[in-house]
C-alpha cells in the first residue's frame, strides 16, 4: 500500500564535532516523533558510527532511520550518502577512513566527537578530525557509493560554502546523483536560473540539523509499504506511484 512519510534526510548527532551534545538518539528520535517525522537519516560528518544507536532508538519509536553519512570530498563539497542498514554503509566507512586527512580532532576548535549507545551513553571518542575534507574526489565518492548500492545526494546546494555549486560552480554531467538537497527552495530556484541542470534532478529539502530545534521534516515521500533505499530511488524517479515533494515555508 502506498503511504506518505514525512522525511528528514540530513541530521547530525553529537558525533559530529559541530553537532550539539543534545543530539543523542533518544532526544533526536523524540523530537522527530513530536514533529511527525517518520523517516530520518543520520548523516554525521565522514562517519556512520552512531547509526546503530539511532536505528535502535528509532525502531523502538516506530521511526525508520537510514544509515547515512555526510562525506566531505577533496573539493570540500558535502555529499549525503544513504544506505539501508549499518552493515551496508560499512564498506563506505572503510573507504572514507582510508582517506582521512591524518589530522586529529582539536576539541577546543571544533568540538567533541562521541560515539554513543541508543540511550546516549558515551562509548568512545573518535580521534580523527571528522570536520575536515577527505582525500576522496567527488567522482570517486559518487562511483563508490553507486557501486555499493547507496544513494548520492549533494548537500545544501544553495549554501555559499561546502556545496557542489559554491565550490564547483556547475553540475558535472558525467556523475549520477539521485537527487539534490536544498535548504531554502527559493535560493535554489534562483541558482537554477543560471544553472538549469539543477532542474534535471529531483530536490529534497533538508534541515541539516545540528541541534534539536532545527529538525523540520519538510520533505514528503510517497512509498509502498516501508521506506528503503529501493523505495526512495523509485520516488526520486517518480515511478510506480512513488513520489517526493516538499512543503514550502
Amino acid at each position: 500500500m502506498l503511504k506518505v512519510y514525512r522525511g528528514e534526510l540530513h541530521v547530525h548527532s553529537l558525533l559530529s564535532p559541530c553537532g550539539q551534545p543534545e543530539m543523542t538518539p533518544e532526544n533526536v528520535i523524540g523530537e522527530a516523533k513530536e514533529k511527525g517525522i517518520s523517516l530520518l537519516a543520520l548523516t554525521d560528518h565522514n562517519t556512520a558510527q552512531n547509526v546503530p544507536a539511532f536505528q535502535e532508538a528509532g525502531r523502538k519509536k516506530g521511526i525508520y532511520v537510514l544509515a547515512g553519512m555526510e562525506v566531505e570530498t577533496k573539493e570540500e563539497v558535502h555529499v549525503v550518502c544513504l544506505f539501508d542498514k549499518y552493515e551496508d554503509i560499512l564498506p563506505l566507512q572503510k573507504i572514507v577512513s582510508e582517506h582521512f586527512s591524518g589530522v586529529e580532532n582539536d576539541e577546543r576548535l571544533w568540538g567533541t566527537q562521541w560515539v554513543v549507545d541508543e540511550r546516549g551513553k558515551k562509548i568512545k571518542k573518535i580521534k580523527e578530525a571528522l570536520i575536515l575534507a577527505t582525500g576522496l574526489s567527488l567522482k570517486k565518492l559518487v562511483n563508490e557509493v553507486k557501486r555499493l548500492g547507496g544513494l548520492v545526494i549533494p548537500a545544501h546546494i544553495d549554501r555559499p560554502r561546502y556545496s557542489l555549486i559554491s565550490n564547483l560552480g556547475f553540475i558535472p554531467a558525467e556523475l549520477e546523483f539521485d537527487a539534490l538537497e536544498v535548504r531554502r527552495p527559493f535560493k535554489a530556484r534562483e541558482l537554477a536560473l543560471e544553472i538549469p541542470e539543477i532542474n534535471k534532478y529531483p530536490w529534497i529539502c533538508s534541515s541539516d540539523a545540528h541541534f534539536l530545534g532545527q529538525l523540520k521534516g519538510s520533505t514528503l515521500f510517497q512509498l509502498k509499504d516501508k521506506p528503503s533505499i529501493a523505495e526512495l530511488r523509485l520516488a526520486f524517479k517518480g515511478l510506480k506511484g512513488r513520489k517526493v515533494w516538499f512543503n514550502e515555508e
Partner: protein
Amino acid sequence: MLLKDVVEKLDLKVLTGEELLNNEVSGGFCSDLLSYVMANSQKGQLWFTIQGHQNIVAVASLVELAGVVVCDGMSVEEETIKKAEEQEICLLTSDRTIFKLAGELYSLLKD
C-alpha cells in the same frame, strides 16, 4: 616585517586581534581550499582568502598563521569574528583582490 606595518602598507581593515599586530609576518599564502592551507601553509604567514566562514579561524589557529585577510570585499560572518576573538586570531579584510594584495606583500617582503 611586523603585521602592523603590513596592515598599514596594504591598507587592511582590522576586525579582530589588535593586540597581535606586533607579531612578525614571515610570508604570505594564497588558497581558498582549507584542507590545502592546513597542509601547506606555515606558521607566521599571512593568509589571503575569499572564505569568510568560521572554519578559517580553526585553520589559522592550528597552523599559527600571523593572520587571515578576507579579500575582495567578501563578507565575514559574525560567528567567524566571535571565534577569532576567542582564539586570538588576527582577522583582516580588504576590498582588493587576492592577486593585488599578495603581489604587494611579496614586494614588501622581497625588499
